[in-house]
């Protein structure tokens, strides 16, 4: 009986690594300078279409995705049918399916509640940072704790920036171009990922595809370019005979 209780209490400490959780928070703090202006824009948008403060914060808390919030806000203002709003936001977030698949092998050894919590904080930024940490982690709990740290700090900053935008408005001067920090952060995580020929082919193909497909609606160019890049990478890996290195 006592053993059963002990086992039930153990899962979190067994997988939770405090140093990795703190490292996740620390690594995600500088990029917040760029994420903050984006959250402010979402807060301003929610305020301008007449959402109440509670609704605006509720949306930021529940949806936790800048692109989906902007789209939802615009469609709510246009009085679009609920089904249209929900489906459009789903299409805008199609790349999350890819992130989810890429994260799956790393989260498989963990208890289900870790998977359920970490899925909620699976954003572009947390994915890009955490997938890198998982590759060097000795145990899945280390990568998962790091992931949890990045997700927690992003979620808190997201709420704060949405609130600031709602109540204070656009106080950050546009001339500072602080939003450019977000692509710079992704660039910093992208460059080390280009560690062999096939990944470089994948990146190059995705770069060309995302520019060519830019006219597509609902940000479909993003996820389509991702698929083009993955297919190009697979083809390059097969031709170059380096596919044995894959699977990670």
């Amino acid at each position, binding site marked *: 009986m006592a053993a059963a209780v002990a086992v039930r209490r153990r899962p979190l400490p067994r997988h939770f690594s405090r140093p990795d959780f703190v490292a996740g928070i620390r690594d995600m703090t*500088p990029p917040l300078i760029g994420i903050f202006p984006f959250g402010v824009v979402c807060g301003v948008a929610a305020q301008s279409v007449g959402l109440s403060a509670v609704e605006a914060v509720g949306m930021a808390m529940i949806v936790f995705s800048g692109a989906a919030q902007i789209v939802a806000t615009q469609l709510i203002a246009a009085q679009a049918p*609920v089904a249209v709003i929900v489906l459009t936001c789903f299409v805008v977030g199609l*790349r999350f399916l890819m992130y989810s698949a890429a994260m799956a092998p790393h989260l*498989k050894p963990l208890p289900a509640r870790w998977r359920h919590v970490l899925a909620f904080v699976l954003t572009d930024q947390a994915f890009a940072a955490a997938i890198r940490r998982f590759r060097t982690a000795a145990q899945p709990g280390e990568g998962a704790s790091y992931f949890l740290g990045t997700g927690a700090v992003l979620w808190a900053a997201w709420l704060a920036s949405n609130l600031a935008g709602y109540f204070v408005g656009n106080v950050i001067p546009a001339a500072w171009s602080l939003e450019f920090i977000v692509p710079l952060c992704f660039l910093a995580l992208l460059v080390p990922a280009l560690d062999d020929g096939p990944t470089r082919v994948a990146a190059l193909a995705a*770069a060309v595809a995302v520019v060519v497909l*830019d006219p597509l609606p609902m940000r479909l160019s993003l996820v389509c370019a991702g698929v083009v890049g993955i297919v190009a990478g697979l083809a390059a890996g097969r031709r170059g005979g380096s596919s044995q290195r894959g699977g990670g």
Partner: protein
Amino acid sequence: MSGTAALWATIVAVGALNYLSRLSFIALFARLEMPPLVARALRFVPAAMLTAIVVPAVVFRAPGMLDAGWTNPKVVAALAAAAVAWRWRSVTATMAAGMVALWLAQWALRTWVI
């Protein structure tokens, strides 16, 4: 659409579908064995998706307005940041170098080109 209840229903529905997209394959491949082709393909997700996010943010001056030349300060800044990322592998140094390069390029263009 009218009323607070309908608005909350929309917010919750958007959030729920958003969460289900994020959970989808994490939950599926926790139960099922992953096909080998999918496992090989996943290696390319970070390189392909991060490129797909970064490139439009750099080469478009405004939505639909492509400018991948030297007169676009964001192109200059991204190249400088990529060089720093390649050499030092530091996220903070890359962001700092990119922002300084962006501000310098914006200033230089204002001063000499226009």
